[in-house]
């Protein structure tokens, strides 16, 4: 029985395990890579984890979209879906700005490796 409970815990929270994995993977890429494009990819993965964190608990299994109709009585919670729509827009804007700055950095420095940029310049 003990083993079964643990299995249920692991499988029942599979959406949360994936969220945790994405958070960690995103953060690791941001910290470990010096290439700016790769950093932005990491940032994208990190933000995606949030989408899953909000949307997955809001899905009611067997529930439909919240449109009032006599045939359906079970609905998924629409609020988190709408919130994440906003978060996706924010994520797209951040990514667009990050890429635009990367393009400008490439024009000015001729490199998008943070190591090159920070070594070749006097910051004090």
């Amino acid at each position, binding site marked *: 029985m003990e083993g079964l409970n643990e299995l249920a815990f692991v499988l029942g929270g599979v959406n949360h395990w994936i969220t945790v994995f994405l958070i960690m993977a995103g953060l690791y890429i*941001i910290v470990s890579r010096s290439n700016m494009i790769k950093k932005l990819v990491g940032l994208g993965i990190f*933000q995606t984890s949030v989408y899953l964190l909000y949307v997955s608990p809001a899905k009611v299994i067997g529930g439909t979209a919240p449109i009032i109709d006599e045939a359906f009585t079970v609905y998924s919670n629409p609020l*988190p879906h709408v919130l994440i729509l906003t*978060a996706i827009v924010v994520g797209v804007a*951040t990514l667009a700005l*990050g890429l635009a700055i990367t393009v400008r950095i490439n024009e000015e420095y001729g490199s998008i490796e943070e190591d090159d940029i920070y070594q070749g*310049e006097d910051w*004090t």
Partner: protein
Amino acid sequence: MLDQFPAIVVAVPLIASAICAIIRHQTVCWLIALIVCFISFVGSVFILGDVQSGGPVSYAMGGWAPPVGIELRIDELGAYVMILVSLIATAVLIYGRQSVKAEIREDLRGYFYAMYLLCLCGLLGIVITGDAFNAFVFMEISSLAMYTLIALGHDRRALAASFQYLIMGTVGATMYVIGVGLLFTLTGTLNLVDMSDQLAPQLASPAAIAGMAFIVVGLSLKVALFPLHLWLPNAYAFAPSVVTSFLAATATKVSIYLLMRYLYSVFGFGFAIEQTPIPEMVLLLSVAAIFAGSFTAIFQENVKRMLAYSSVAQIGYITLGIAIANATGLTGSLVHIFNHAVMKGALFMLIGGIALQIGTVRLSDLAGAGRQMPLTFFGFVLGGFSMLGVPGTVGFVSKWYLAIGALENGWWWLVILLMLSSLLVLVYMGRVIEIAFFRERPAGAPVLSDPPKAMIMTSWVFILACIYLGFDTGFTVGVAQDAVSALLAGGGR
């Protein structure tokens, strides 16, 4: 009309920002921005009046009653921070026209004002909203505008600084939103007041604690609490002078406001401060911030970067009040939010004038400049006194309250540390003054003069405010004390 002010102060900058981006003519945009900032300022003053006479103002956005709809909610602390932000925004615009002309490419100036207004809209929005997710959206609006403003710096290092801030700022904001997500799954509401009520019986649940941890760490990144301050020095040092004056005085302050609101109003004093190790952590990090920031400032060649490190230290003073966690210490903290904005705003404005006249802000280029730019550097000396905490300046008032607050806790060692940290301020501010006044100007160097009237006058208004508010503490301390008693009573409800 009057009861629509909460919506107006945020909506007007947002709409005006789009208009500026379409018009793009620099003088017209400047004028629009100035009028809009002033409207926000007047609105904030009216709201403070409302709050003082009738308690927290609640505004149901679009007529949807809270907690279902988005609520704009302003208590006394919120109104105080709004006045601060909109006042600085207005003053920096009056100050900055010449500086913008000198430092920003002509075809980008219209967009600059658009971004400036967008940033103002975001900052005011964070303060004014009573909705956890709405605060995230406003946070990202202000941050995205800030990254753009920083990247407008004419030095290519501004781009790298902006990218660094973008990565760290987004990580911070995403952590905040993860925390909000956990609390939302637990309580099913996003309204901060409602969330606080729902959370009260289940604060011990792991989801609530994890949510609090994510929110505190995420906001600390935005606050630039040591050691999460790494984005700040470069961002402030290489952004255009106007942007630095505006950001240094407002951006981190608004995040501190949000952090306080979560700790005191949502999680509550009885839980966040008394039952978690947050005060101990914040105490340790604040003291580390004060010493590491001031110490690093001593070794900077770039005066803007030096003042940026000094900001890291000053943020330490503000968060120290959260750790002291009694009424006097918190008052010191809130007063310092205003006082630091006034004095750092003034110093960065003066530095902007120096950048305009000399062309650089490296210490070695300032030799002997003090005698040729007397108004600028005399203002700098007075601002330096204020940073040092000389009696009769604003710096003294906030440090006094922090020190008394520490003594009330029996932390006499903290008072000694506060005094020692002032010595470090003396070293780095003294270094600039020594070089500017007591070194000879190199032979053949061009003769300098004080910057244009608009710049020098606005800077001096703030310098004089440093002294005036040091004697007449009625507004700052008065409002702060009211706000503190509201915070300690479960706050802003």
